[in-house]
Structures are given as C-alpha cells and as structure tokens.
C-alpha cells in the first residue's frame, strides 16, 4: 500500500512536470509568434516612414555604360 502510494505520487509529479513543460514551451512559442507579429507590424510601419509610398528602390543603372567616342561631342555635359 505504501509503495503503491509512492508510485502514484511519483506518477502525478511526472505528469505535472510534463504539463508544466508543455505550458512553458507553449508560452515560449506564443512569445516568439507575438514577437514576429510585432516585428512585422512595426517593421512595415518603419519602412513606410523611411520612404514615402512608391519612393523606395535603387538608382537605376544604364542598360550599357557609355562607349568611347572620338572627336567633339554633339552636346556637352557639364555643370551649370
């Protein structure tokens, strides 16, 4: 009887530990998901603040670089 009570108590303890572990893991996962949601939401907001809508991107490179040419130009590029 005494040893049976001990086994039962140990089993309940193990089950409790497993339950707490699951709860801890789920709480951790919930934290990660919340962090991701917040990061996406605020990251998107920050991106919108950094550049006006439609203003992002990069400086567009030419299809091909200037080619060497001889003689004078048809037009001059210089400061004005």
């Amino acid at each position: 009887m005494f040893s049976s009570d001990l086994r039962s108590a140990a089993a309940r303890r193990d089950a409790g530990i497993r339950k707490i572990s699951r709860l801890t893991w789920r709480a951790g996962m919930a934290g990660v998901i919340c962090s991701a949601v917040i990061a996406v939401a605020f990251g998107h907001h920050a991106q919108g603040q950094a550049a006006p809508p439609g203003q992002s991107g990069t400086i567009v490179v030419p299809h091909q670089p200037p080619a060497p040419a001889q003689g004078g130009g048809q037009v001059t590029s210089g400061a004005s």
Partner: protein
Amino acid sequence: MTTAAIARDTFEVFGTTAVLLVTAAQALGPARALADRELAAVDLACSRFRPDSELTALNEAAGDRRTVSPLFADLIAAALRAAALTDGDVDPTCGQALVGLGYDRDFAQVKAINPGPAGLPARFGPVPGWRSVELDQATLRAALSNGARLDLGATAKAWAADRCAALLADQLGCGVLVSLGGDIAVAGPPPADGWRVRVTDDHAAGPDAPGQTVAIAGGGLATSSTTVRTWAAGEHQVHHIIDPATGQSARSCWRTVSVAAGTCVDANTASTAAIIRGEAALGWLAGSGLPARLVRPDGTVETTAGWPRDEPPAAVS
C-alpha cells in the same frame, strides 16, 4: 538606331542653356514647341525665384498643408526619392542654406553681386532634412515642417529633361536628346553610333573643351561640379552644392563628377551625392554599378563600372 542627320536647337531656360537634338529634321519645330510648353510648366511649379511659383507658395506657407498640382507633386516626389536613395545626401531642404550663402535670386544676379560679409544673411547649420517634407500624392497635399524651405535645383532640371525626352520621342516617333544645363536625357531610337557627349566641367564649354567624349544610347548622363556655379560670399568663394550636414558648400575631393544612369534624374542624384560623399563615392558608385568619371582638383581622373578610359593625349610631333 538611325543614320538620319541630326537637327539641333539651342535656347535659354531655367537660367541656363538647353540643347534639343532630334534624329528627324522635320520633328525639330514640333519638338521645340512641346519642350517649351513642358519646361514652362516645370518653371511655374518649382522656380525658387518666381513669386508666383508653387514652390514659393509652399515655402511661404509656414508649415501649413497646401494643395499642390500633380506636376509639382511629382517634382517633390523625385526630390524625396533622391534623398531616400542617398541617405539624405541630396536633400531638397537646402533652400534656406542657399539663401544664407547669398543665392537668393537668379544666378546671373548673384554672380554679379558680392554682398560682402556685412550684407550676408545669417548662416545656418545643418538643413532641416528631407523628412521635414510631407507629401501625399494621392490627395495632392504637401507641407513643410521644422522651418524647411525647398530648393529642387538638384533634381528638377534632370527630371524635366527625362520628362521632355520621353514625351518628345513618344509623340514624334524619333530619337531625342534633351540637355538642360548639361543634364542630358535621351529617348527613342538613337543615332547609329549613339549620342556623342563631351564630358567636361562646364556645360557651356565648347565641344572640344578639356574632358572626354563618350557615346550613350539610352538613359541619362549628368555632371556635377564645384567649379562652375560659384560666387563670392563675403571673403569666401562658395558653390551651389550644399552638404546637408553643415548647410555650407560641400568641401569635396572631387572637382567634377559625371554619372550615367537609367534616367537623367538618377544620374544627377548620383553625381551630386558623389561630390558630397568625397572619397567614399568611388566605392559607392562602383558598388551600385553606376558608370562614373570623377575628376580631382589636379585633373586626375578616376572611373567606375565600365566608364571608358580617357583617350591618351595626342602625341606632340
């Protein structure tokens, strides 16, 4: 590509010289008429020296939100995009800094007048910054905060060159080159050997001025320099390229920077930023894949991303 003869027109606009080239002679007259209409609209939208411009009205609005035209909204958007792409090095809120340096009227008048140290307005520190500009292109509303005053000089000419070139090529069906004070945009089928451009310090220099001749077939090419738009401000010689961090003329290791890009406004954005960034511009331009020619004060030339090497000087016999 076309081998037709190129027709040319030259005229004054925005206080500088414009050149219009077309690959079909009969298109030159209509091209000029279209260009005049477009450029007049841009001038009315964003001239800093016209009391009736939208830019003047916004600068005088003391932070109030104003309705703007679609054209002016596009011009502001282009300036904000340039600022965003250069981390604020090309900043449209340099208006007050330029006034502080004496550039408060048409440049020909500025050049003729040295106000002297006592005549100069107070100098200002860092510019308010491009984030002080609020623009809603959907509702066409704009406002300035932190005392910002716009100057779109860094992007408006180049943007207008892009707009004119695209419009003219589309409506006239020929190859078009538009140069506004040396900011060059091309559109439509180019000549067989491309458009030949002499790259030098001053756009008003002749076709054989010291520099280099290159050929482009599309996009844009722009040159920024600290040597041309200069004036005396008290005891100092200053120029128009403002470093937003100081509110003063940029102190650069480059005399002149030319950049080729997919559009003229992007080329001008990069060439202006390069002057402000100094030595770091070499790595930035190369990393961005932008062909560029950078000239140091002693004439030494550096190039990036496939820009052709300067032709060797002719042998002396």
